[in-house]
């Protein structure tokens, strides 16, 4: 297990440097005017130009700048937005909302996706199974730029069940619809994954053993099958939590929820390059950490890995 973890950790460090380098290089290693690139299409006055040059050390070589960016990032210093607000503060305000949204999405995923997957896995070929398979396929096939406005129209304007937008101090109820929309893709994937995993484990020899021990059917499924099926499901949910943060861009934008995704989409329209880089870097790090945690969980859940 120790070797496994060390290997995964080293891998993560390597991927961390590579991905942050790519992101940084894409934005700043430019042939043209880096200040203009920072400011986007807006005109740059001399005051701002001088300030940006100093702040980003643009007179220094590229690799030195990358190194400074990395060390700052690791110290939690993400610099300032174009209008001078610390990016750290922007994120500190935005995170709690995005995390709430992601948690709702994950809970929805577990509640509906995993449950439906277990039922479909047990009753393979039944009407329930075939219906959910088609339904999940449709959900997977509908992009969030369609799903989010559609859900907003149907549930907030047409039927007025939920508030149209969530706004600043959103309650759990306000976040429910955006959370469901955000989680819908994961619900579909989780359902299909659970179904495959459960029906595979149901065919396993150890199920036959458990039955021949005289275990009742609900214990065979609830303990023997589910505990084994949990391994891929939990790892999926872990990775998914990381990608949900990125998936929140569209959903938060549509529902006007001032989370991280909303800040990112706002930064895109206001051409606030430092904020874009800051948010993307943090999201990439979160994504990597989520992957590492998943690897840890995998080792905890599967003894065959633990004692490798």
């Amino acid at each position, binding site marked *: 297990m120790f070797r496994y973890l060390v290997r995964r950790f080293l*891998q993560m460090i*390597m*991927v*961390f440097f*590579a*991905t942050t380098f*790519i*992101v940084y290089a*894409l*934005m700043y290693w*430019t042939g*043209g005017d880096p200040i*203009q*690139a920072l400011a*986007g*299409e807006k005109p740059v006055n001399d005051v701002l130009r001088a300030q940006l040059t100093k702040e980003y050390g643009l007179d220094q070589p590229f690799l030195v700048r990358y190194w400074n960016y990395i060390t700052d990032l690791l110290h939690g210093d993400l610099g300032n937005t174009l209008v001078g607000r610390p990016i750290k503060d922007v994120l500190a305000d935005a995170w709690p909302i995005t995390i709430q949204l992601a948690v709702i999405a994950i809970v929805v995923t577990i509640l509906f996706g995993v449950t439906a997957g277990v039922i479909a896995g047990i009753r*393979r*070929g039944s009407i329930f199974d075939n219906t959910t398979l*088609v339904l999940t*396929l*449709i959900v*997977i*096939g*509908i*992009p*969030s*730029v*369609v799903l989010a*406005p*559609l859900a*907003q*129209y149907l549930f907030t*304007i047409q039927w007025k069940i939920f508030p149209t937008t969530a706004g600043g101090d959103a309650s759990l109820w306000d976040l429910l619809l955006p959370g469901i929309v955000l989680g819908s893709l994961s619900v579909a994937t989780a359902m299909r994954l659970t179904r*495959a995993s459960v029906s595979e484990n*149901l*065919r*396993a020899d150890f*199920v*036959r053993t458990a039955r021949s021990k005289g275990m009742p059917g609900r214990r065979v499924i609830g303990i023997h099958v589910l505990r084994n099926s949990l391994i891929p499901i939990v790892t999926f949910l872990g990775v998914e939590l*990381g*990608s949900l943060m*990125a*998936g929140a*861009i*569209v959903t938060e*934008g*549509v529902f006007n929820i001032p989370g991280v995704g909303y800040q*990112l*989409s706002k930064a*895109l*329209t206001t051409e606030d*390059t430092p904020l*874009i*880089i800051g948010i*993307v870097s943090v*999201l*990439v790090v979160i*994504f*990597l950490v989520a*992957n590492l945690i998943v690897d840890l969980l995998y080792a905890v859940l599967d003894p065959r890995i633990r004692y490798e």
Partner: protein
Amino acid sequence: MSDFESVAATELHTATPGPAGDPNAPGQPHTLEVSKPRSAGADAWRELRRRPLFWVALVITAVVALMAAWPSLFTSGDPTACSLSNRMGPPSGTAIFGYDVQGCDVFAKSVYGTKNSLLVGLGAALVAGLLGMLFGVTGGYFGRWWDVLVSRVIDIVLGLPLLLAAIVFMKRVSNAGGGPNVRLIALIAVLGLLGWTTAARVIRSSVITAKQQDYVHAARMLGAGSGRIMWRHILPNALAPFIVIITMALGSFIAAEATLSFLGVGLQPPSQSWGIDISHARLYMRENFIPLAVPSTFLALTVLAFIILGDTIREAFDPKLR
């Protein structure tokens, strides 16, 4: 099914040779089905033909392709001929779904947006497919340091969430002031460059499996070169999963294009894109839902068609999944 399948494998199908059975053994009590060289493909096709969902998806993709190539076949309207006097106007004449907030023909805009969506989707799928094929085959076949390098590069690309990396990249392109064609090519490049890893992984593992099989050893001993072995013996085996992944990737590339355009970093007006239409129409959906519904339907149906196509092909090739 558990016991049945294990039993079926070991006890029922005795007419087909078991692991130790010799298909040409004398005294064979019953006729064996003669093993056909391309039976997997033929079986899959037979299975596919029976699935209505497959045909629905195929028809949709055919219509989408036709629409991309000859949009004027579907509408006589002009997507750029907008007149504010038609603002949110009801259906009239050629504009069967009415007009949007800027007085543009909603249906014509969506029909003409098909081309860009499909171009990005196909282009990115081509780039991703070629890269995946190249790295997957060479990594799996040559192994050693090259394989290690390929695997690490895959790790790195997977560490970058597709949407985020595309946003940063496209932001860079727009800051550099690229025109519509530059943006189109940039979209194809970034989605292709970020989207090849799954294909490469699948190809790599099936190449590694195939490499260890006897007939490949035999071909090598008979003096076949690496290129020939890969082309004739290994690639055909990896083809089915490859097609599935690329088909599904095509759908998700189209969705990604729409998302990026929606966020303002993909295609930009005056280019026609469903994503742009959706993002504009969304702001006025209280007033009029139709301009949002039309491009949304086009986008959803197209993406769905490719996803369903991929999914049905996958099931046809892997009956175990059913």
